């Protein structure tokens, strides 16, 4: 049966390629419909089982980091296309299978958004799960935050061996009591805690320092002078040079290290793996365009946006900043979440502040009320970015904060104009 399913799926992938389309969902959808048992049977063949990575923020980067670290010892199957629902996992599995139905992998590492993670664990019981955080996301899509926490509880309960939990997010820490899986904890040091507010703290609650010991702790962040972060991995403190910008990526590295411990990896292997990871799509990616540096940061929700803004603390003030806000389904149709991010002082950090995307004007209003007047509103993404790059001098940096669909457009633009002389 799985051989037939693989053939069918691979045929759909091929057919899509012939007509020039890159489909993540369709092959998976076809197989899901016709062979509902395909995924559980395929996953049962992975000797190290499945790792589910979920939570509001950091899924894509953490999945990428975990895959890189584990790939030193295991053959890792992952859905690194950012297509974080069950069909995406099926498509990735089919693409990775041979025409003879063989699946030459040891472990599956899958990023799943909260709602899809629940559906996934009903089909496949993961051996390990990494539960990152619960933050207010685009609430018009998921409902409310306590509902999201319940989704993660279902994932924790379904996990058989190890749950990796964020000590600093109470909604996550509580999940340890619900599962028979062994908890491995990660967190940030007490000094760094105010920089990593959880949802309660973000909305005015006091910073609650956990008394739980963390198996992996983020001790210090990178600064302009010392670009490596410091991680304490099972009592062993190490400097780690991460390529992805921003404090949130350092926190994701801590989650990754904690997961790696459950595979028996030592600190040396973990550090080597982490240092090899390229930034994920739009998560602190940096491009060089005509001698100017352009840094892309994806923003999806208030907590993530706040974390992304802190990228600015780790670099000299940039020449220009573009904030690009679209309101398609994948971005969240409701843009009111921008009012849950504080932007005071943003204009002081830069020479030019430009808003872009379909809701460029909304963003400009938001900045206006935080006293950071914009230089211009340019809804067209290409124009907004290319004009700023043209105004910048050689060696200057332009930092872009962008929602999901705008990020796709910007990514395509930057790939096209990168390295132009």
């Amino acid at each position, binding site marked *: 049966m799985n051989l037939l399913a693989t053939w069918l799926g691979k045929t759909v992938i091929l057919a899509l390629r012939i007509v020039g389309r890159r489909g993540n969902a369709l092959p998976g959808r076809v197989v899901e419909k016709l062979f509902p048992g395909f995924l559980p049977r395929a996953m049962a063949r992975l000797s190290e089982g499945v790792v589910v990575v979920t939570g509001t923020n950091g899924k894509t980067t953490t999945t990428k980091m975990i895959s890189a670290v584990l790939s030193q010892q295991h053959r890792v199957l992952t859905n690194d296309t950012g297509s974080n629902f069950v069909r995406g996992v099926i498509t990735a599995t089919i693409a990775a299978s041979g025409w003879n139905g063989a699946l030459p992998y040891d472990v599956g590492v899958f990023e799943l958004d909260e709602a899809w993670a629940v559906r996934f664990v009903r089909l496949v019981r993961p051996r390990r799960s990494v539960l990152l955080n619960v933050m*207010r996301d685009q*609430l*018009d899509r998921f409902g*409310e*935050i*306590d509902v999201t926490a319940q989704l993660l509880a279902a994932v924790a309960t379904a996990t058989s061996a190890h749950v990796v939990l964020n000590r600093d997010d109470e909604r996550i820490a509580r999940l340890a009591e619900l599962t028979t899986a062994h908890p491995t904890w990660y967190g940030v040091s007490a000094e760094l805690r105010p920089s990593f507010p959880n949802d309660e703290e973000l*909305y*005015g*609650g006091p910073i609650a320092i956990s008394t739980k010991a963390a198996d992996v702790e983020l001790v210090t962040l990178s600064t302009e002078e010392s670009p490596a972060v410091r991680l304490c991995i099972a009592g062993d403190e190490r400097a780690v040079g991460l390529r992805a910008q921003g404090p949130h990526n350092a926190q994701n590295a801590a989650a990754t290290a904690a997961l790696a411990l459950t595979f028996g990896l030592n600190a040396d292997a973990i550090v080597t793996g982490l240092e090899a990871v390229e930034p994920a799509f739009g998560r602190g990616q940096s491009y060089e365009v005509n001698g100017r540096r352009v840094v892309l940061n994806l923003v999806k929700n208030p907590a993530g946006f706040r974390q992304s803004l802190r990228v600015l603390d780790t670099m000299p003030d940039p020449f220009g900043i573009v904030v690009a806000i679209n*309101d398609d389904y994948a971005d969240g*149709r*409701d*843009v*009111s*979440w*921008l*009012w*849950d991010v504080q932007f005071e002082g943003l204009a002081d950090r830069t020479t030019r502040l430009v808003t872009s995307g*379909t*809701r460029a*004007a*909304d963003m*400009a*209003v*938001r900045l*206006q*009320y*935080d006293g950071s007047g*914009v230089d211009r*509103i340019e809804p067209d993404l290409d124009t907004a970015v290319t004009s700023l790059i043209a105004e910048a001098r050689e060696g200057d940096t332009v930092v872009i904060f962008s929602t999901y669909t705008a990020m796709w457009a910007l990514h395509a633009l930057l790939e096209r104009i990168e390295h132009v002389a």
Partner: protein
Amino acid sequence: MSELVLVHLYPREMNIYGDTGNVLVLRRRLEWRGLGVRIVPVNVGEPIPGDADIVLGGGGQDAAQDEIGLDFVSRKADLRARADDGVVFLTICGTYQLLGHEFVTQDGIVIPGTGVLDVTTRGQHERLVGNNYVDTDFGGRLVGYENHSGMTTLGSGARPVGRTEVGRGNNGKDRTEGAMRDNVFGLYLHGPVLAKSPLFADELLRRALHRRGLSTDLEPLDDSYAEQAAAVAVGRPR
């Protein structure tokens, strides 16, 4: 003291979909004109100061609303007296519902309200979601984002704030949006609504200033971004 007192109800719990932004908008519009403003957060069990000029409340998580609901109802007499006295209220979604007589959940549980506004709300399964606007003859066009599953019906003692042309409004049936009486406003517009409704924001300030016997001449501000943002939102119904 020519300083307006803005009361922010339950800032921690009732702040969903950016409603806290309404407080910021009013504060800045006073500050930019050199007028005094004091923000007083009021949490569960804390008294609303006697000199409150404007009371603001937003939407919240359902779970939080149990505790909030009880606290709110305990303020019934106080809130009604202030409303009768012309205090300005801007309440959105959850706090709008609590200003009504009652909220009947999907399971038929009756959560009593304060009866400040002559409205009642019933929970239903379907959520009404999307960009929405209403035109008013006192505060221009109100533009926001609706996202609620409570269906609100107005009694004879409340007037709708406006008629919705594209959105679902109070109940998805009678085309009304929001409810008002005296200076009390309840709306289903998040966004926050005042960000893209500057005329309405100034109207609230004028009503509060008038009640205090202060000048209601407000220096004009540059609202071109807000107007642009409102036009974009109006052009993008769900």
